[in-house]
């Protein structure tokens, strides 16, 4: 069976057990990290999951943002956007950040990606002792494909040696249903296809940390759902640490291990909820709906309408 087809099949229960990622021989840090991960006993909270899908609880990232201000460009008045945001990310964990729109969720990702060093606080990678920063994948709210490069060139842009990974690129393009569109320029593709290409661009580098900023917003429901499945499938293989920003609680429930609720301006983490849906149950509508109903109560209490 061709590899690309396996990617498209919705995973069945237990399907992830055979997909443990091989340690990356080219990255000593990753190798060491995995060794550590296997020695660490799973924490109490993780026992409800099947053993093979428990995320290894070694810390990947410590985030402490005391204050982040933006000056209003016209008036010059400073506005506090983030205040006292503290969170830890563990290796292989999928964390969703939810909050009202404009509350600073995108800013949080910006700071973590190092795109904006002007803030009070510290973002510390567990791996920086080795001298190398983590490999970062970023899926922005808009696809941000380079319009002068074709789809394939856009997807491989993060690879040091695109020719050496041609097979992986082919698989990923096929998984994203983009195999025949590799030589198309992005402006000839639909928004959904552009988003898939942006996902492929982030996946192909097998990032240690994947930052996603409402990547499925403004897509029709079936397309968004298809992309969510694809995301879970690829994440299941790669075990990147994912930080996923959204304002859609149902999406967060389906995808994440943990959901963080942000308050409105200035944003701070007001609640943290463990989702506790096993990875093989993520596509189980009733399981997700039941958990979603629980979280929705929390959500409504935190964000009263009007």
């Amino acid at each position, binding site marked *: 069976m061709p590899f690309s087809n396996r990617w498209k099949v919705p995973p069945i229960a237990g399907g992830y057990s055979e997909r443990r990622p091989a340690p990356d021989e080219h990255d000593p840090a990753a190798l060491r990290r995995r060794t550590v991960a296997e020695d660490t006993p799973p924490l109490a909270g993780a026992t409800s999951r099947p053993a093979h899908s428990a995320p290894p609880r070694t810390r990947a990232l410590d985030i402490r943002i005391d204050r982040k201000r933006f000056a209003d460009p016209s008036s010059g008045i400073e506005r506090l956007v983030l205040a006292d945001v503290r969170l830890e990310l563990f290796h292989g964990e999928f964390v969703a950040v939810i909050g009202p729109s404009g509350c600073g969720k995108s800013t949080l990702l*910006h700071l973590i*990606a*190092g*795109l904006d060093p002007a803030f009070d606080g510290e973002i510390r990678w567990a791996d920086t002792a080795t001298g190398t*920063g983590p*490999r*970062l*994948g*970023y899926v*922005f709210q*808009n696809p*941000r494909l*380079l*319009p*002068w*490069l074709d789809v394939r*060139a856009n997807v491989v*842009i*993060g690879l040091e040696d695109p020719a050496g990974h041609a097979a992986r690129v082919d698989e990923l393009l096929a998984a994203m249903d983009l195999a025949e569109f590799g030589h198309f*320029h992005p*402006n*000839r593709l639909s928004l959904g296809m552009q988003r898939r290409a942006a996902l492929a*661009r982030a996946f192909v*580098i097998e990032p240690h940390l994947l*930052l996603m900023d409402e990547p499925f917003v403004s897509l029709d429901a079936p397309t968004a759902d298809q992309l969510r499945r694809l995301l879970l499938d690829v994440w299941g293989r790669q075990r990147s640490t994912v930080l996923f920003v959204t304002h859609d609680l149902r999406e967060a429930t389906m995808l994440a291990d943990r959901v963080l609720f942000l308050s409105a301006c200035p944003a701070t983490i007001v609640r943290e909820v463990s989702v506790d849906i096993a990875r093989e149950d993520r596509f189980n509508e009733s399981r997700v709906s039941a958990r979603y109903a629980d979280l929705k109560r929390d959500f409504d209490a935190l964000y009263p309408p009007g």
Partner: protein
Amino acid sequence: MPRLRPVALRVFSSLCLILAWQLASWWWHSNLLPSPLAVLDLAWRETLDGELPHHLAATLRRVVVAFLLAMTIGSVIGVVMGRWRQADLLFDPWLILFLNIPALVTIILCYVWFGLGEAAAILAITVNKIPNVVVTLREGARTLDRDYLEMAQSFSLGRRRTLTHVILPQLLPFFAVAARSGLALIWKIVLVVELLGRNNGVGFQIHLYFQLFDVTGILAYSLAFVLVMLVIEYAVLQPMEGAANRWRIQ
């Protein structure tokens, strides 16, 4: 047929111009406005005895050298000024000064300071053109899309890949504008440079024919060089621009 129409239109418009010229020369009937045929005849004779190609080549060489120098130096300065605010603040007064110095002054000063040589001539042309390139490329560097730069930074593309895949493609249209307007400006300045201090080139010949009050000679040389510039425009610049912008039209 729709592909042919713009070409046909262009040919038609050129023929109209030549016809108007012919009519005017019949009407005026003076050797101060020779007919197109008389100009063509002189150009042909000058070509046969090697004079015209010799002077055209001299001018073209100066245009090309000065153009390449001005584009390279001007682009680097422009991008630096567009990206670093400090550099922009520091050099903006210089830029305004150089933009406003008349070409003639630069040429005369270069000849006075550096002698009536080829190097002084090229320097004068280059210095005249650099400020225009700087202004255009600075605008291009200022409008670089932040979204793409953020993408490049978060994916750790590094300097080389960011430059070739993210920055240069965005600067290309500005580069094309600078090149297009630059070529037209440079060849006009070259003629003045040649008129004032060189002993070959189209400008030198025009000076000669001016002293003889020979309009036929002036027109033959200047139109011959216009023709050369048209060929460069249609055969080199436009195809290059088209190739660079292919992704837009697709």
